[in-house]
């Protein structure tokens, strides 16, 4: 695969990743957000495969495979299972209105592009505009976590942010060492498991949502 083609593909995939994050932010319903993050993970895996083909680094193929299996299938399935299990209202309860969140998101994307202009030396020919997209993905994921009340949506935000970190890592360093990528994925899986169990247990024992735990503060 030629370098030129790879750059263009990465640019297109970056746009799609950004779009899927905006879908998460705009989602008014829990399942939509989960599907959006699954789609985002698929795009990320494709980006990894494209980079792997362009650079000939076999590690990137492995990471792409793991991403498909874990992030696009396993974790969304876990989330959906938890939602079905606890039977909560499936509306997203935003802390600030969805429209305002989208406005903030636009600001963050602009900021990310402006900032990365100052990081010129880091931008490499092959990955084009991947760096600002990666930064924007990370920050937007955190924005999802900060602006939604439900613990499950915060988990979705965590996955989106994590996807952003992966994309940045791939784009900037053309693949971090395999062991680090696997470690990061394990972290996310563990976090998801712990949070899922916590949500279930809190629900089954005191019949309340995690967000209500703030009432415990003395």
């Amino acid at each position, binding site marked *: 695969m030629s370098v030129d083609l790879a750059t263009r593909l990465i640019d297109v995939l970056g746009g799609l990743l950004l779009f899927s994050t905006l879908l998460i932010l705009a989602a008014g319903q829990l399942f939509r957000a989960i599907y959006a993050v699954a789609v985002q993970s698929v795009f990320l895996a494709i980006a990894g495969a494209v980079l792997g083909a362009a650079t000939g680094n076999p590690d990137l193929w492995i990471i792409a495979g793991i991403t498909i299996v874990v992030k696009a299938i396993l974790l969304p399935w876990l989330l959906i299972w938890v939602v079905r299990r606890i039977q909560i209202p499936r509306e997203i309860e935003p802390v600030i209105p969805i429209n305002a969140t989208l406005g903030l998101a636009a600001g963050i994307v602009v*900021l990310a592009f402006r900032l*990365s202009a100052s990081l010129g030396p880091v931008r490499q020919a092959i990955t084009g505009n991947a760096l600002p997209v990666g930064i924007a993905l990370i920050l937007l994921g*955190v924005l999802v976590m*900060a602006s939604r009340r439900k*613990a499950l949506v915060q988990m979705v935000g965590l996955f989106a942010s994590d996807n952003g970190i992966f994309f940045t890592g791939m784009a900037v360093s053309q693949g971090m060492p395999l062991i680090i990528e696997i470690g990061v994925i394990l972290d996310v899986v563990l976090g998801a498991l712990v949070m899922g169990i916590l949500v279930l247990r809190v629900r089954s024992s005191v019949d309340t949502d*995690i967000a209500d735990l*703030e009432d415990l503060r003395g």
Partner: protein
Amino acid sequence: MEVHKPSLRGAVWLAHLLILGGASAGATLALRVLIGGAGTLSLTLPRLFPFAEMSLSMDGLSAFFLLVVTLVTAAAALYGPSYLGAHAKAPLVQTFALGGFVACMAGVCCAGDGLTFLLAWEGMTLASYVLVIIDTRNEENTRAGLLYLVMAHAGTAALLVVFLTLSARGQGFDFAALRTAARTLQEPTRTVLFMLALVGFGAKAGVVPLHVWLPKAHPAAPSHASALMSGVMLKVALYGIFRLGFDILAPADGPLPASWGWTVLIVGTVSAVMGVLLALQQHDLKRLLAFHSVENVGIILIGAGLAMLLSRGRGAEPLAVLALAASLLHTLNHAAFKGLLFLGAGSVLSRTGVRNMEELGGLARRMPWTTWLFLLGAVAISALPPLNGFVSEWMTFQALLLGGAKLGGASGLLAGVAASMLALTGGLAAACFAKAFGVTFLGRPRSVHAEHATESPAPMIAGMLLLAGACVALGLLPGYAMRLLDGPTQELLGGLGPSAVVTARGPLVLSGNGAASGLEATSISVTAVAALLALLAAVAWVLRGWPRRAPRRLAPTWTCGMLPSSRFDYTATAFAKPLRLIFAAVYRPRRAIARETGPSPYVVRRLGYTGEVVDLAETMLYTRLKRWITATAQGIRAYSTGRIHGYIAFVLVTLVLALLFFARV
């Protein structure tokens, strides 16, 4: 009093004997470096961390401080088992903490790189913390331990900044790399690092105003551990000041910055005066001794500060050598007599169970060995000839007076002020120990505990005798002690060693040689003074047996027809009263008299007296600091909402701000 199983006592004894063996080995090694000319010993440790080598290295300065550590350790190891057997809780834990404490102190002195140094330093803090809180478990000791831990870690934080700054520049932790890194520093950076080091080590050494933990924590430990903490641990902190100030941070050539010498000299003077003033008003024997440690650290720092002011780069400056030698010698001397005094106080404590000297008295007949040994220590710490305290303080005086004259100007004036303050300190220390000794050992017993006291067992006496021997030897033969100081001073200042500068004729005389004119005028022969004193004593002894005209008659003191009771004796509070009045501006004394009257207000049934003095540093500085921290914490609490998404929003804002800040175009 608890009775321990024989196997437990055997284990405690065995562990203490091991510590004693280690101390002897360490002392032998140190003496080989100091006198045997073994050069610098070094040892590479197994690699624990991927980023740094660890090593031990012993040059003259390390060896000298190791000698200080081992001297008191040996005495404490002899003394410990009997003391623990008498009244300790968890003697095995205490023994192991003691062993770890001593090992870490030796490790700090012999560290060859910053990492080993900091690890041993932290180990020293933690082990001594265990010793502080374990002996008597009560609320007060727990708080003292916590205060100690907080102060020690605040100090370590300052040290971390220093060491990490240097190691980042030097690409390594070993002292050679740090030294090279320090050479490239700008003058202001260097001074900031030294001040940080001074704060970090000063918090541990107990210099005013960082001393508040010391009089609370030291007395709480078992007495032989108090002896080690006061006599040695403070010195290990001073080792850090010497090592960084004169060696690692020193500029490649030219004198040390004047601001360093000024700061150290002023801090030392303030510590000396405040330490002894506060000691005067203490009626708890061990706390009084702890305050005297603040004073003596001040005296050591006076010598060090003067040496910094007088030093001229690597060239020889006899007066600087004299000041540094005085400072180092006082380090060794203070370890010997403060160790002796703490062991003596521990002996009193273990036989009576009382630390408040108002409840003691009359121990001279009941505990003769302890009494004489404590008296010897008291004479030494009061800087009276012919014991070792006099030697080093006299040398400090010589250096201050002659150095002040040589420096001239503001520095000279400062040296003069320091000299007069040192004189005041010496006088007040003598008054303080007249009180401590007189009230504790003389007169009549003021409580049943004191009345039924008996002499301590032989091993405890042996531990004290070891240190008493060191006091006498260092006092009578200071000329030989100078040879111990040759290595350290030549490493730090270069040029002549103190044995060439200080001793004029053999082991006898304490004076300058080849130094500035006028040094001979202040020379003194301690041995001759001792001989003179011995002669006077002999004359008094002979005259005592001279036949008198009237026959001798023994009778009780006339007390206006009342039965004499021990309540008539002079108390410690009363003894310190005149000084409390003179220095009222510093003490801010408060007293309350409670009268309990009968049916008529003119019939007083009972009078209660309570009085207290304040530590100015505590009220002026720490109380305010505490109030400020509490207020800030309350302010922060308002933002601690407990909402998870709120916290995540903080993270987001911080991230964006950090990006904006670091990625500016």
